[in-house]
């Protein structure tokens, strides 16, 4: 229980709401705002004022969402600490992304009920309210407990415990080396330590990969269909939805918005967005539609760039292509049932190209598979497993654990003395302990005594 550090969490209910709020409480709240929030005019944030602006990913400079932000300076806030609220427009994914950026700024994910706890500990709410707080925390704890038990039986927990086990074994070797200098302890220990740490790190990598997948499975991905008019975008959408139905296309040049449909692809919820056909239009309204379509590119997890193979690669195609440099793209070459009239340019090597005919259905299964594999690398979806690791707390813990292991490996290579190496491993254990529970010194001693013959 760290009282002084800065914490962050999503404070609105999970799901698709009109608005989502990320809260940051603690001394670093203002620093987080400074790092992530860009507003139109210069100057800092005044306390208790709403500001309009954007959240920007500092690493890429990408705009994540348009937001309203308010900073409440201590003690005039819910927690009586500096409290930052970021009101996002977007759905759950965007709110998650904003939280992630906050966490990457060095703040810690809040424990369940921690904002309320701080409010109480800082004297913001009274005793009667505190009773209610206990109830709130209890209900969350019970959920957490149920989750923990669920995990204990599950595959996931087995894997996290295996990580802990590896680290604890490595630590036991280091500690034995420190505490029993007079014993003839095998010198092979050094190799074993490296082995343990390597496989623990690899396992964490794998789990974190699973985390991303788990998140995808729970929250779905967005796939944007993009292409100039008449390349078969709507029939592609119909095909992916596996049903013939009229796409609500209004009078050309009037409503040029984006159509959104959700389809399940082998356990992966895919939100397909069909855009108005992009064309270098002079018409102002149509230009607006084009602008909106292009605007969707950064928010999409995957772009299906549709080409008509019966017609030559045009300037219109090229201008769309130019917008896709930073996206994940599958090139869909449609109308292969017709004579080929296109000479496709060279695409980046990591782009998949799929030939389809939306008329005959040729290649559609392959396209579905390609979309799914883009996200899940062909792995089967075990809903339970992904559901558990889609928790930020676990991810947070594993990321920190991994960082400690990296530090350990670097320090080991630099031949730092063993008690410093032990510090790194203890940190790693502490972080993984947020998921598995603490590893006590006795656990480590147990390992030493069972592995080595020790005694004077």
């Amino acid at each position, binding site marked *: *229980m760290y009282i002084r550090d800065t914490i962050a969490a999503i404070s609105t209910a999970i799901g698709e709401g009109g608005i989502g709020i990320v809260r940051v409480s603690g001394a670093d709240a203002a620093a987080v705002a400074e790092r992530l929030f860009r507003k139109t005019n210069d100057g800092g944030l005044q306390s208790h004022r709403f500001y309009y602006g954007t959240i920007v990913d500092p690493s890429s400079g990408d705009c994540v969402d348009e937001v309203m932000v308010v900073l409440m300076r201590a003690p005039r806030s819910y927690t009586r600490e500096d409290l930052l609220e970021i009101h996002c427009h977007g759905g759950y994914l965007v709110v998650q992304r904003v939280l992630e950026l906050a966490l990457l700024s060095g703040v810690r994910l809040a*424990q369940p009920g921690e904002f309320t706890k701080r409010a109480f500990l800082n004297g913001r709410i009274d005793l009667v309210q505190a009773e209610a707080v206990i109830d709130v925390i209890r209900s969350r704890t019970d959920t957490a407990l149920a989750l923990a038990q669920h995990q204990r039986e599950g595959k996931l927990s087995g894997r996290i415990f295996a990580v802990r086990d590896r680290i604890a074994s490595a630590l036991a070797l280091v500690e034995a080396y*420190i505490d029993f200098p007079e014993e003839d302890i095998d010198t092979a220990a050094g190799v074993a330590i490296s082995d343990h740490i390597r496989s623990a790190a690899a396992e964490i990598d794998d789990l974190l990969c699973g985390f991303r997948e788990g998140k995808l499975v729970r929250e779905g991905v967005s796939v944007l269909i993009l292409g100039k008019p008449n390349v078969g975008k709507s029939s592609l959408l119909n095909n992916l939805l596996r049903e013939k139905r009229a796409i609500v296309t209004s009078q050309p040049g009037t409503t040029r918005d984006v159509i959104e449909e959700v389809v399940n692809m082998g356990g992966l919820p895919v939100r397909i967005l069909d855009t108005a056909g992009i064309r270098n239009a002079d018409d102002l309204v149509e230009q607006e539609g084009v602008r909106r379509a292009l605007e969707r590119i950064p928010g999409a997890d995957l772009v299906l760039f549709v080409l008509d193979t019966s017609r030559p690669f045009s300037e219109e195609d090229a201008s769309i292509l130019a917008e896709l440099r930073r996206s994940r793209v599958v090139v869909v070459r449609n109308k292969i049932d017709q004579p080929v009239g296109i000479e496709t340019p060279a695409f980046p090597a990591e782009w998949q190209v799929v030939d389809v005919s939306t008329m005959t259905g040729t290649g559609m299964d392959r396209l579905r598979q390609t979309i799914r594999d883009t996200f899940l690398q062909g792995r089967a979806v075990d809903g339970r497993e992904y559901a558990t690791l889609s928790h930020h707390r676990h991810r947070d813990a594993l990321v920190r654990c991994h960082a400690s292991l990296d530090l350990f490996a670097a320090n080991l290579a630099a031949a730092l003395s063993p008690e410093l190496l032990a510090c790194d491993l*203890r940190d790693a254990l502490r972080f993984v302990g947020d998921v598995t529970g*603490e590893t006590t*010194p006795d656990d480590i001693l147990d390992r030493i005594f069972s592995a080595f013959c020790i005694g004077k």
Partner: protein
Amino acid sequence: MIQYDRTYDVIVVGAGHAGCEAALAAARMGCQTLLLTINLDAVALMSCNPAIGGLAKGHLVKEIDALGGEMGKNIDATGIQFRILNMRKGPAVRASRAQADKQQYRLRMKAVLEHQDRLDLKQGEVTSLRLDGGELRGVDTRAGVRYCGKTVVLTTGTFMRGLIHIGLTNYPGGRAGDLPSVGLSDQLRDAGFEVGRLKTGTPARLDGRTIDFDRLEPQHGDDPPVPFSFSTERILQPQVPCHIAYTNPRSHEIIRSGLDRSPLYSGVIEGVGPRYCPSIEDKVVRFPEKDRHQTFIEPEGRDTVEVYPSGLSTSLPIDIQWAFYRSIEGLERVEIMRPAYAIEYDYVDPIQLHATLETKKVRNLYHAGQINGTSGYEEAAGQGLMAGINAALKVQGKEPLVLGRDEAYIGVMIDDLVTLGSREPYRMFTSRAEYRLLLREDNADLRLREKGYAIGLLPEEEYRSFCRKREQIGEELERVRRARITTSTTDPAFLREFDLEGMQQALSLEQFLRRPDITYAELERVDEVARTLPAAVREQVEIQVKYRGYIDRQLEQVERARKLEGTRIPDAFDYASLSGLSTEVREKLQRFRPDTLGQASRIAGVTPAALTILSIALKGRG
């Protein structure tokens, strides 16, 4: 009972390593003190190996010394081989160890006790506490004498209902050659204490004249020997070597052939033994793949031929012992002077103690040493010192002294004991200390001298000399921050040697010292002031500069934990009334009854969520 006509402030029962420190501390702090022992010729006797210190134990001795205890000085005066272990590892895990002249060690300690003002040293077996309606009044002895005292410190060692085993033969004894203490543990049980049974063992003592030392590998001490005590200038007595020998497959065959007559394996022994100090039969059974086990043949003293083969304790029958010891190369003709044996004894689970070592059940009663389920002279001495200090403070109506886990190994040990209890003999390891980098041997004085002085235990002159050292360290830390190495004023050869030629800015001495390849030995070549500093000051500054990053990290963790450690849980706290705790956590808390939130956090199975609930409930009360 015939009542003795004096009333003592502190009565200490038992004159082993815990009892001696307890009695000296109380008397030095101004209390009228009585030290009772079953055998006046066995004061501070080393019942097992003739050595002080070792990993984590050396740390304890330095801490005892820093607070004003005697153990460090006693071994400095009577040690016959001094070594610093882990010299090639970092400063936090370096530890001092010394072989003692066993008889000299006990004789010197007895003399120190005898010359201590306000301290009476008497022979007598305490058979019961005198309890008057639950209030402690003193002790009664086997000889029919009643001693009155305001506080009592029990340091019973292995004596309470001690039972010695050699093979299937067993007989009552507190130690080979001494009577057991009978009656006291029954009374404690009747008074409501949970009393358990532990086991430990010791190897045979061998006749050095019958050992072929030429065929063994000698191990010498450090030259020059480095003393334990911060107050000892240098060790003057000459040093003697130990020798290393090994068991072999034939030794293990012999051991196995005697297992059917082992009290351990035949179930005669019910007490739990220490895993880190297993008997040789335990090692052979548990690690059958090992074809040899190492032993250090340690001298028991300069004036005796007796030697102690470490790591070879056993409770096997004497005929197996004869054959087994003689199976070792170099020991083919060896004569056993005292057989190896195991001993079972009663202990009182320390979970029934406050962090002051006062029992929760009986006020003014303190427990220290093996009665708390620990093992080791140093562990015992550390507890004895704290029990003596706290008994004295209690009599004087002053605040108790409790050391934190971030302040001392003694603090870690006592917190472990009173928070988690003990199920097997507890030994100190550096891995038990989460703030290991802060708790070094080298800075024990910086950590604890001030406290020892504040309670009136540390003598004025030792405190003054410490203050001088502390000032020098402070000044030197400041100086290395300010003083710089510049390319213009430094010998070019030196700059070349340490790759400093091209540097753009002047380098502070601190930055230079931080380099792994740089110590004061290099620094003093270009820095005159460094040459004039005492070695202890240089060492301290060097460590603090080099390890600052890691030390700061641990200090940060200490800071975070402080809030938990400082939040007290009332004695009678009702966990049942607290909604939101799982049954498992509630049962644990009810059993362990932690004094603080910090202690609660160290109980296995108490989750962060449970701590949150608890802390909120406590906040509500305050």
